[in-house]
């Protein structure tokens, strides 16, 4: 086999390999979500594998980020820095910082303000939020946290046009500052 032929074959093989970066399964989780959360199964191999499967999948982390905003987690935890609720960017947590403990916290709630989301979110959604919350505290591979989240912020966009016929856009005049 000639050298150009071999090179192009190698390049093609590399291209094909890049297609297998991540499996996206829109239905269900990597493992049955209703498997017991934090019980005897907590430290079992199965629980470990499930945690890893959620944490190492960009779709799950990104969905988690979306739900983190949709469910107004930011209302108390801000973007992870904390406010009314504790910060999420450190690793020493009152109720444990393993995936299992976080899922438990989100599902059942905790005293002094953290509401429970069991029945309000599906188990898969809770696991995804937990995966995102974990990614705030630990260094994650770059492939997991894209520069642009799948759900961008939904704020009021500044309009660049001047719809004069419809809305007065004159800025409020503060008399004290007008000389």
């Amino acid at each position, binding site marked *: 086999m000639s050298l150009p032929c071999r090179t192009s074959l190698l390049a093609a093989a590399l291209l094909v390999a890049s297609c297998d970066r991540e499996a996206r399964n*829109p239905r269900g989780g990597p493992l049955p979500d209703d498997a017991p959360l934090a019980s005897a199964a907590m430290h079992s191999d199965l629980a470990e594998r499930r945690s890893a499967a959620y944490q190492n999948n960009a779709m799950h982390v990104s969905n988690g980020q979306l739900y983190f905003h949709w469910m107004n987690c930011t209302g108390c935890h801000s973007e992870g820095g904390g406010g009314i609720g504790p910060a999420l960017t450190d690793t020493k947590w009152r109720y444990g910082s393993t995936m299992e403990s976080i899922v438990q916290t989100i599902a059942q709630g905790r005293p002094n303000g953290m509401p429970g989301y069991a029945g*309000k979110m599906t188990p*898969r959604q809770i696991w995804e939020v937990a995966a995102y919350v974990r990614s705030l505290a630990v260094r994650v591979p770059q492939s997991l946290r894209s520069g642009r989240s799948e*759900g961008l912020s939904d704020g009021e966009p500044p*309009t660049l046009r001047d719809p004069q016929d419809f809305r007065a856009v004159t800025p409020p005049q503060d008399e004290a500052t007008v000389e």
Partner: protein
Amino acid sequence: MRKLAPPLMLLTLGGCAGRQAMLGAAGRDSALFAWLWHVFLIVTVAFYCIVIAGLLWAVVRRREGGEAAVRTGLLVWVALISLTLVGLTLASWLADRNMNRAPRTGLTIEITAHQWWWDVRYIASDPSMTLRTSNELHLPAGTPVRIVLKSADVIHSFWIPNLSGKQDLIPGRSNDIVVTPEKVGVYRSQCAEYCGVQHAHMAFDVTVQPREAFEQWWKAGLLPAHAPATSVEQAGYTYVTTRECSTCHNVTGTPASGQVAPDLTHFASRLSIGAGTYPMDRGHLAAWLADPQDAKPGNKMPVIGLEPAELRAVSAYLESLK
């Protein structure tokens, strides 16, 4: 394959009629587009005929007569082309100018595009009259409507082919388009900018109705949702308002007040479900509720895992939300 090409190309003509038709001319802009399109069609067909006639003439003519005839012919030809090109440019400019002259007063509607559905707000000066709905648009015939366009995630494009041209919805800023519907009817709008897996299933129904009917629809839309009447509906109501549904969806007049997913207050009065993906009927609704990821893979509604009795109850309740 060559033999198949002409009939296949004829299929594309299907795009010229029906609920989603560029030449539908049911709106002010669309009528201008249709006019411009027909002007171009007639002129280009005429020129095609002239060129073919010239070619035929070149084949049959004898080598007699001088260069003078050819020179005159060429001069006439160049002049004809120049004048027609100027004429077409003028026609295009006139259509464009006419579109920009659309009156900008009247109704304001705000549409926020999401992957892959449309959040619609009818803006009124009195906030209690502001109406939120999803994946449907009702418009009064003959009234210019300013539609403010925003996006919550990626770039989408707003397009009701029967009524007007396209306008992009861009995250982080607001665009607008003025649509003046003229003919009463039901049309289909389709997202016109690739926006992800379910781009093709990001559509909605547009109902253009007489002014009075439109105002009635608006008033009816402000009413709270239908109260459950039967025990099955009651069971569905309880599920929708206390479980996963209410976290994202809003049903006005009930505790369900999520704002991140389509509004369900008068859900069953719409013509389709899943942003124009399926017709509105019990079968498609139940299939959607049982597995939204099978009905429209990749959409943001998770698989809830409803038990058969819950599925019956929830679909009965949603179907009662007229």
